[in-house]
């Protein structure tokens, strides 16, 4: 009996962690594809005079949520969350890897791109947070 009580939270926790982890590995192109596959028709129909940039498509879909397909609502939430996470990870990666870069890539100081490339190649030597940041940013 006690074992069930233990198993339920573990399974729930597994589900909760599994979903974002999967979304986090999506490229921008794939996230855009998720959005368009589920919402392309609704966007053309309800947001035809609005552009993607500046959060305008996101706001328009939310504004029209009563008319938008249920599948679009969940996919849009997933796609925009993934875009946000991936962009944040890409912006954060050099800061997270700062100490590793100073330690491992001393000879490479010509630009962020070269430093990042050095970190990606130095997989076995970089710290776990830096490796995680590189993965979250989609660089491997």
């Amino acid at each position: 009996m006690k074992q069930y009580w233990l198993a339920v939270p573990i399974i729930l926790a597994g589900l909760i962690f599994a979903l974002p982890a999967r979304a986090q590995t999506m490229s921008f192109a794939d996230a855009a594809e998720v959005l368009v596959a589920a919402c392309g028709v609704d966007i053309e129909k309800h947001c035809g005079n609005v552009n993607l940039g500046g959060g305008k498509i996101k706001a328009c879909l939310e504004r029209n949520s009563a008319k938008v397909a249920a599948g679009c609502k969940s996919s849009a939430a997933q796609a925009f969350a993934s875009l946000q996470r991936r962009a944040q990870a890409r912006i954060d990666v050099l800061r997270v890897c700062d100490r590793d870069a100073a330690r491992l890539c001393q000879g490479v100081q010509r630009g962020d791109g070269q430093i990042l490339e050095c970190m990606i190649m130095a997989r076995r030597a970089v710290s776990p947070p830096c490796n995680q940041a590189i993965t979250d940013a989609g660089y491997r």
Partner: protein
Amino acid sequence: MNRFLIATVAAFTLAISQQGAVAQGKLDTDDIVDSLRGLEQQAQISAPALYQRALARIKAEPGMSAVGRPSVAEELNKLPQLTVEIQFNFDSDIIRPASYRTLGRIADALYHPYLLDYKFLVVGHTDATGKREYNLKLSQRRANAIREALVTTFRISPARVAAVGLGEEQLQDPAQPTAAVNRRVQLIATGKIK
């Protein structure tokens, strides 16, 4: 050499986590990186100056034939670049959802280590149907819409992306100025960010 390793790892990861079509998309991002890397010199390119040059030519030579019309900014042709197809609503700067994936793919490429230290120019072009000055303004608005998506939705640093419209002043096929091939968007590497 390094590039191949990164590409192989990325393609493999996608192949096991997503469908085949997605892996194909990732390879396209690699093609974009290949097209845009390798800028040797810092180019002195200013988007507003290019726009003003195009506008000045329209004003100075209103009767200039579209057939055989020379490029207004020949210097752009020497820089690393690629032409992308972005679909807009008719006579509008609204990007159609069918092109969101392409925007995402461009943004993925701009975050690639090989391109991270570079600046880019988004250049919008129309064909030679309609009024030249109107086309110039429409192409500028379209280039702006692409830039806006790149710097907001995909959070590319605003300092890395400039936008200019050249209307029908830089035709891809001056022998056939109303051909569809002239309606295009270019992405051009113009310099290092620091």
